[in-house]
């Protein structure tokens, strides 16, 4: 069993004419790697009609609907995170209920609003009520503002996690660029924050630092935009850890924090 907790799919209203090929490539590579389930999100229109990290309500609905259809079409291997934009609070809360009722298993917050902002609290209360985790996009040590997103770093996510100790948070793509040492130090004391290993970064020493910081009990395997680097990190973990600890990272931790029956083995 292998669960990718950080996947994405594209759709026909995204700016990418090759969206079908990219989706097919993800599934094909997943078969080769042995990915049992891709837990995915679609960030609105991917920039076509509203910004990737500030998606409009109509774009959010289209993306979530498309993902629900993918989840139905690939019932054994795709699961969805509901994407919402906290700036549209009423829409966000309604969209959460609609998509969780329809079978999505988590919430994706990207970079529409800083993680420590109070606007995220009602969303986290829904996460607690429904028993679903929150995957939060993180810029590993944000030293300044970055165009196109209101990015958060681990310290800001930590502030949110401290306010909602019953909610499980996934710190997104520790290998996604940025200073992962800063992030690991920030989330080390927060037992409800899990580290998602995805991202194109395959830095020597990063996995050792993750294990040292949060232990294998709080590590989750994922790929994001590069399945090759996800596979590389998995291979290295298999050389580094005993089998039972690798199992935690491969799927057992994910099975623990997502709702019961989210995955085929439950």
């Amino acid at each position: 069993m292998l669960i990718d907790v950080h996947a994405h799919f594209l759709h026909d209203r995204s700016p990418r004419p090759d969206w079908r090929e990219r989706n097919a490539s993800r599934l094909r590579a997943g078969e080769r790697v042995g990915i049992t389930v891709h837990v995915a999100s679609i960030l609105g229109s991917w920039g076509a009609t509203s910004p990737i990290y500030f998606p409009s309500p109509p774009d959010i609905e289209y993306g979530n609907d498309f993902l629900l259809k993918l989840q139905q079409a690939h019932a054994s291997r795709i699961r969805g995170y509901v994407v919402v934009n906290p700036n549209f609070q009423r829409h966000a809360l309604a969209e959460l209920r609609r998509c969780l009722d329809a079978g999505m298993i988590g919430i994706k917050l990207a970079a529409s609003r800083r993680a420590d902002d109070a606007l995220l609290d009602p969303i986290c209360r829904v996460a607690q009520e429904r028993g679903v985790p929150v995957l939060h996009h993180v810029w590993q040590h944000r030293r300044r503002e970055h165009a196109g997103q209101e990015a958060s770093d681990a310290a800001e996510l930590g502030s949110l996690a401290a306010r909602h100790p019953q909610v499980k948070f996934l710190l997104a793509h520790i290998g996604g660029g940025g200073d992962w040492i800063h992030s690991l130090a920030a989330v080390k004391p927060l037992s409800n924050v899990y580290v998602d290993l995805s991202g194109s970064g395959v830095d020597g020493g990063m996995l050792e630092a993750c294990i040292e910081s949060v232990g294998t009990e709080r590590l989750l395997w994922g790929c994001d935009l590069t399945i090759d680097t996800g596979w590389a990190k998995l291979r290295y973990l298999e050389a580094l850890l005993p089998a039972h600890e690798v199992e935690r990272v491969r799927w057992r931790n994910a099975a623990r924090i997502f709702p019961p029956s989210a995955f085929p083995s439950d």
Partner: protein
Amino acid sequence: MRIDVNGFVGAYPFRRVPGTSVDALLQAMDRVGIDQAWVSHLPSVFWRDPAAGNPWLYGTARRSDRLRPIPAVHPGLAGWEQQVREAVADQVPAVRCDPMHYGLDPTGKEMRALAHCCGTEGLPLLLAVRLEDARQRHPNDVAGELPPSAIRTLVRTDPAVRLVVTHADRSFVEEVHFGSTPDEAARVWWDICWLWGPPEDHLQTVLHTVGIERFVFGTGQPLRLPEASIAKLDLLDLGADQRAAIESVNATSIAAAVSRSP
């Protein structure tokens, strides 16, 4: 046979990196099935005189038949031609230069002189676009990334110049390859370590559009997990000959030309 053209030994100044010793590098090579590595001395990339690390590197490589040294040359320091002559005498596969770290104009007269000299001597010149993702670098690690224009400029300095470029992404490769004549492009080799696999399939794309003959296996270890470059290849549908070309044949042809040079 698998040859890693992009390995390092020695400590990195900006963060703790495990596995920087020679023994650890050899263990990592065993772990992932790399037979031979072309190795650079990592600390001296940041030294005022990077060639000062070459004697240690030559000595270290002589102790293992699996390691081949890539000595550094700083063409802004007097006497650099001697470093090139030593490299030729030692039949190294290539010399490296990191102009952005040395504070040199990557298309300036010193670099053009080095490229010309390497071409004349039949010695490939290895250049890294970057060592780490720009987003994660230490606040004091401010050297810029090598621009594609540098490769386009250097390959034109002499019809015999041959360049091995590491840590380049898809757009970099495409800009240089299609911004060069076929003859120029045929004298540039790219390591695969920074090219994305699926679902974006950048590596698959450039293997098709640029040509398998232009790519060599490289990892950037120990700064990067060597497993990544192997996983990229395992995710492709390559014939045995195609995979062998990337993993060893192309690199062997580069190195063989050095030993044939006058």
